[in-house]
């Protein structure tokens, strides 16, 4: 997989991992995911569509182990998906990953384990905001977040969009100001 590198000092560039699809899929809570209801003998595993949904839910949303699958290989696959996701988020949010240092990727993986991905850009944004909310965002990462917040409008639901009017982004002690698309970090 490839993602375009994101220069944190040039946040006016359009970040996108998937240029073909501007809108991300809204993640469903695991409990709402359609899944088969096998009987006691496991003889009615459901349609392929249901079983694929149940498998994805188990891998990325903390859903139950689908019937019949060997637990260890599935756990290995789940861990591999999380490591891969952590790498993608680190490419979008290099200062978030660097700021967490040795705690990355464990911090990301703990946060992401039961959350389906919204793409590397939004996953990192959501994590940075969650850390900011509990005063756990490292200084480097706070600067990165402040710059992004000043440059983009992100409602937590849909892809971030460049702001058209002047804005201030704040995270921790970092303050970034955006005027006419140019962002300056004040401190």
């Amino acid at each position, binding site marked *: 997989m490839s993602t375009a590198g994101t220069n944190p000092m040039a946040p006016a560039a359009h970040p996108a991992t*998937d240029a073909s699809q501007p809108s991300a899929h809204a993640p469903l809570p695991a409990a709402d995911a359609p899944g088969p209801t096998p009987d006691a003998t496991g003889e009615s595993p459901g349609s392929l569509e249901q079983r694929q949904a149940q498998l994805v839910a188990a891998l990325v949303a903390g859903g139950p182990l689908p019937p019949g699958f060997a637990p260890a290989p599935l756990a290995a696959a789940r861990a591999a998906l999380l490591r891969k996701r952590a790498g993608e988020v680190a490419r979008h949010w290099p200062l978030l990953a660097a700021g967490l240092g040795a705690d990355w990727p464990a911090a990301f993986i703990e946060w992401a384990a039961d959350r*389906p991905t919204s793409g590397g850009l939004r996953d990192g944004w959501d994590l940075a905001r969650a850390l900011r909310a509990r005063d756990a965002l490292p200084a480097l990462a706070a600067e990165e977040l402040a710059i992004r917040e000043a440059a983009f409008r992100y409602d937590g639901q849909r892809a971030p969009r460049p702001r058209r009017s002047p804005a201030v982004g704040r995270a921790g002690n970092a303050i970034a100001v955006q005027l006419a698309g140019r962002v300056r970090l004040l401190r």
Partner: protein
Amino acid sequence: MTGPHGVGIGWRPEIAGFVADLPGLRFVEVIAEAVPSAGPVPDGLVELRKRGVTVVPHGVRLSLGGAEPVEPARVAHLAAVAELLAAPLVSEHIAFVRAGGMEAGHLLPLPRSREAVDVVCANVARAQSELPVPIALEPIAALFDWPDDELDEAAFLGEILDRTDALLLLDIANVHANTRNRGTDPVALLDRLPLERIAYLHVAGGAEHGGFYHDTHTDPVPPPVLDLLAELCARQRPPAVLLERDGHYPPAAELRAELDAVAAASGFPAVT
């Protein structure tokens, strides 16, 4: 417009400079989803095209194995990228990447069942009807199997290729990964694959973690994978072999040495 030939490398923005400096390079891949359908094509690829280097769009998010019909917008995007790059073919995976409204984040294996064969063939046919060029299908590396496989890997793949008339993109590292993780014989699998349908090969690095071989694309290509590449090319050498590297990029000298090792194992001229 020439097909893939010789030793190639997956073009990624992070190694664009390295790739541009490979004097003998005739073939690269680009992740199709990384190219906007209305352009612009990344500068590095434009330069390679001017040099006559073949660029193959490699899709990773079509989800041809998804039980729902493949999304027309994604097929249209792949078709548009193929046109932008004047590509002789495109490639995608025999896998699914989303279900129930959730993205898995990577390629997931299908049950090797008749139902799954039907699903893949229907989606490949939908894609083929909109694509301007042939499609090559790549079997993936999987860490797990479904509990109810009816077919083995060779039979599953053979059925899909026969029914779709698609080309084969064989990833030799995936063959290593799957046979290593299942405890089966990779050479016996090669014996049963339709080698004459291979459009090109993939080769990539990986690592052992927790008792499994992981096809990471971020580690060096291990010796058993190079040995398997040599074994396959000694039987029937496909037109091209492409090295995929997707992160933890090593210094240029190491990456050049890896390309040289791929060339040596396959019998193609070095491109470095």
